């Protein structure tokens, strides 16, 4: 640490975050330390202080906590406290909720092509990663789900914008519903659609579908 006397607010924030059992927002810290303290500046100072050390200060969805440096995982991985292995269904469901949120169960099922059992979403809620987020105002008013701050904390995401590849997926239209994508594809391929309907080229690499999709790409 630096030789000079640490700032009182920095010390207080450091102590509060070390002692806290849960990640704390700047508001939480202000309630604890004092409304007038410059919490934001203290957090930035601490983040810089700890950068490169064995312990780091990280922000996850507006909440801050100290955690060990990722490159030391080999040292600390605990055999006894294994994180529960998620089923494939749960993993995919979590990804769909995270990338599409908020989504209803029916929308998850449309993407996965199979039914999503109640238990799958329950597991994700039990882990504290997913929560009901109201109802979709369509017939039947289905429940919709979204991720929680705990999800961001667990997966080390500063915000949902940090989700791996989310920008590329959005740009490629892969987060749009099939109907919407289909509409777009058909609109652009109006002219070429007829010519592609050649039965002989079907076994060929360059069949009609291929051409159509090339046009879209």
């Amino acid at each position, binding site marked *: 640490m630096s030789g000079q006397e640490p700032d009182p607010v920095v010390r207080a924030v450091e102590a509060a975050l070390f002692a806290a059992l849960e990640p704390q927002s700047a508001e939480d810290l202000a309630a604890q330390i004092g409304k007038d303290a410059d919490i934001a500046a203290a957090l930035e100072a601490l983040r810089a202080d700890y950068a490169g050390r064995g312990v780091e200060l990280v922000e996850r969805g507006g909440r801050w906590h100290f955690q060990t440096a990722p490159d030391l995982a080999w040292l600390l991985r605990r055999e006894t406290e294994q994180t529960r292995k998620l089923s494939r269904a749960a993993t995919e469901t979590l*990804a769909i909720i995270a990338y599409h949120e908020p989504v209803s169960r029916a929308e998850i099922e449309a993407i996965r092509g199979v039914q999503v059992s109640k238990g799958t979403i329950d597991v994700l809620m039990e882990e504290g990663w997913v929560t009901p987020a109201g109802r979709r105002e369509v017939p039947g008013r289905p429940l919709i789900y979204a991720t929680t701050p705990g999800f961001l904390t667990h997966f080390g995401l500063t915000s949902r914008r940090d989700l791996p590849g989310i920008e590329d997926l959005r740009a490629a239209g892969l987060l749009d519903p099939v109907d919407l994508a289909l509409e777009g594809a058909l609109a652009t391929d109006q002219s070429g659609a007829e010519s592609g309907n050649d039965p002989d080229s079907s076994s060929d690499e360059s069949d009609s579908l291929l051409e159509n999709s090339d046009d879209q790409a």
Partner: protein
Amino acid sequence: MIEGASGGASELDSVASIAPPDGDYIFFREPVSPATAAAEALLIDVDGWEGPLDLLLDLARRQKVDLRQISILDLTNQYLGFIESATSLKLELAADYLVMAAWLAYLKSALLLPGDPEVEPSPEELALRLQLRLQRLAAMREAAARLLSRDRLGRDVFAHGQGEGLRLLTKTRHDCSLFDLLTAYGRVKRRSEPVVHMVKSRRVMTLEDALARLSYMLGTALDWTDLRSFLPEGAPADLTRSATASTFLALLELARQGQVELAQEEAFAPLKVRRAR
């Protein structure tokens, strides 16, 4: 169909022996040992797929091209081949696999036959829809894999093991002014004070007065007369009410004595009176 099936199987055989791409390991079936007959291996692993779309995506991956360039016809052939060989081995397939097979068989024939522009939706649109669904499923699979491989709290990075915990105790102070206190006392006193009801004296006409007055007035009323015309004129409302009651009682008394006759045409109609003849 049989040929298509064997063709699909041989392709599967060659692809099944290669290792899956990095990171996708947990999502896709374990590679089948090259020694195992491909068709059999697929059947053994049928539980490894979560429905027809999942199987289709797995087959599509084996084409080793970008999903946007996938040949839906080839994919259809592979899928139908798989179903065919499963049937020949007398294995029971879940209904949704068979439904998908029927749908793909229809799609295949539609794609191969000259297009009928009247048919909606066109086979191309159906094929494109399938392709878009496969792309979306694949994208979410990959996203899930990338998500799970991040440095996860409690697995790769760790929070403070001995956090003491923060406790923010909110103490409530109560506020009460002297005025509040006195108002409250006034409220209590009002509630508990015995309420004294004062009945003010009112002018009344006694039954005796009414009898005397009526006996005198009836001398002039030879024909049917409304009861109300016997009441004192211009009296205040409370005296009128009292006089009405007394006069009515007096009339009943006189009728009992046979001095008067009473008549009323209907309920609540004016009460008429005349001297008895």
